[in-house]
């Protein structure tokens, strides 16, 4: 297959079009802008819709409208813009409408900065809006993985009728790497049983709705949704385990910081330190089984993030606090260096 050199943001867009995404609604924000620009150039030719919305709020609601009719729809933004989309994402979840949201994270809170960050982990995995719900969260760590995860995210979202997010960051969005685009089957999911496409006088009318004024009715739909979440947790986790078989110090990192951590693990191995890396590719559901496998021989865990420590909560929960979990992170848009991480590994000692 031909290798193309593409920016992460552009690769996300191209992959979405190839995955059968029929519409993109967005609003300009750094560092995801190339994604919208690419869509503006390509979507129309691909027979789809590109529309620059008047706000992030309008954009996510355009996604809600389009996705309610059963088409693959997406929006993308960066951290402050994703906060604005929270309302619409909650409605998507509450209406069981699948769609794709991309967050090319930058530093926060508030207007924050525009450099790469991983400070929206909690938002994505814990509280992507009001109410009792989850969304699927995918964490690519290379441009190729961005491509692969777009298809995976659309498919999984459609399969379970749950919104999906790709949680990237400014580094992955801006960098270029070689990518290939695999052949994919874009129309695998039949949505005719629920989509609002006009009933043609042939069926009952379909209602896309998240309002249940009777508490027992609302409880029933939420409980039903959580049963689906249990299936997702059992079947849809994914992680990379790198040199974990004999590792004594297990690093945990996702996305861009996992690249840094992997470099540090390699350097540690050269020094004879038995380091390994656990890299979740799905953040929700968190790969509980996989991290326990990776940590089975480790005496200590080092969680590395581009934040003040957010995923670390999931690491501790997944391990049931059975091992000490240390943390190293940089925030505000600073990318930790492999040398810094290696220093932390050395501090923790580790069997040689």
């Amino acid at each position, binding site marked *: 297959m031909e290798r193309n050199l593409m920016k992460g943001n552009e690769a996300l867009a191209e992959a979405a079009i190839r995955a059968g995404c*029929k*519409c993109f*609604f967005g609003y300009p924000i750094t560092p995801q802008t190339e994604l919208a620009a690419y869509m503006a150039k390509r979507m129309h030719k691909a027979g789809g*819709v590109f*529309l620059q*919305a*008047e*706000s992030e*709020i*309008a*954009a996510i*609601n*355009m*996604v*809600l*409208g*389009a*996705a*309610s*009719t059963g*088409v693959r*729809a997406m929006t993308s933004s960066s951290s402050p813009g994703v906060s604005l989309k929270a*309302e*619409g994402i909650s*409605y998507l979840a509450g*209406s069981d409408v699948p769609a794709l949201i991309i967050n090319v994270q930058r530093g926060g809170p508030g207007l924050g900065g525009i450099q790469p960050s991983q400070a929206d982990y909690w938002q994505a995995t814990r509280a992507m809006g009001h109410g009792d719900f989850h969304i699927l969260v995918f964490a690519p760590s290379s441009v190729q993985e961005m491509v692969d995860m777009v298809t995976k995210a659309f498919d999984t979202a459609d399969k379970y009728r749950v919104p999906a997010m790709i949680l990237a960051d400014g580094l992955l969005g801006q960098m270029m790497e070689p990518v290939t685009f695999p052949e994919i089957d874009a129309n695998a999911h039949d949505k005719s049983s629920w989509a*609002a*496409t*006009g*009933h*043609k*006088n*042939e069926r009952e*009318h*379909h*209602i*896309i*709705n*998240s*309002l249940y*004024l009777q508490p027992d009715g609302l409880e029933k739909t939420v409980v039903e949704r959580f049963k689906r979440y249990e299936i997702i947790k059992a079947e849809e986790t994914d992680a990379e385990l790198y040199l974990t078989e004999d590792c004594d110090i297990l690093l945990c990192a996702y996305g861009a910081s996992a690249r840094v951590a992997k470099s540090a693990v390699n350097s540690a191995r050269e020094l004879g330190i038995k380091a390994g890396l656990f890299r979740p590719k799905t953040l929700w559901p968190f790969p509980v089984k996989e991290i326990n496998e990776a940590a089975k021989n480790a005496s200590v865990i080092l969680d590395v993030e581009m934040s003040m420590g957010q995923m670390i909560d999931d690491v501790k929960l997944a391990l049931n606090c059975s091992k000490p979990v240390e943390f190293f992170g940089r925030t505000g848009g600073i990318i930790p260096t492999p040398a810094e991480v290696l220093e932390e590994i050395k501090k923790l000692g580790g069997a040689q």
Partner: protein
Amino acid sequence: MAVVFERPKSLLDVSTHYCPGCTHGIVHRLVCEVLDEMDIAGDTIGVCPVGCSVMAYDYFGCDMIEAPHGRAPAVATGVKRTNPDKFVFTYQGDGDLAAIGTCETVHSATRGENIVVIFINNTIYGMTGGQMAPTTLPGQVTQTTPFGRDPKLAGYPVRVCEMLSTLTGTAYAHRVAVDSVPHIREAKKAIRKAFENQKAGKGFSIIEVLSTCPTNWGLTPVEALQRLRDDMIPYYPLGVYKDITADEEGNK
């Protein structure tokens, strides 16, 4: 015996949650009559708002989507852009359309989205129990303007049709009322024209319907209709504010 009047087929045979004397029922019927007469219910997707008509999805027989507060025009944009062959309408109240959703309203109009917006102006937030709306008249007493709306403190009402008629993208802006039989007939003609516009690809059509809220106005239904005539119509004059099809006719 000949049938001279019946419930339109698109209006589902269920009891609504609307208060006695509320004019939502009339407007629902008018919309459904138009859907039936044009035989488009099977190709129509409606978008309901947050407000009194939040549960309109249980009353309109076409496919329906319930939008977040104020976002119906954005949701409708998403539907229409990806399904240009379908009919798409929103049904929104004044708080939804002219306060929290002003941005979505103005921009869907200026983009000339080929949709129909049915806008219920009853000068009050009904569902939450009678607070000031962007359309509440100066001096009008509501729960949040207990001494009457003082424009010095709370600003002035928004005249939606006038505002939207300044936008090039708006094809048709028409203010009607449902306080009397002649007005109701006029309202239905306007709604029909709005859907015909959509069929012809003319762009954004908004029908503002001056309506009543007897419950939150503290009036009987009959008194409420009288208030609509006495207080609302002078402030919100009825009529066509923009009609590009009339201009096209005039240019012929």
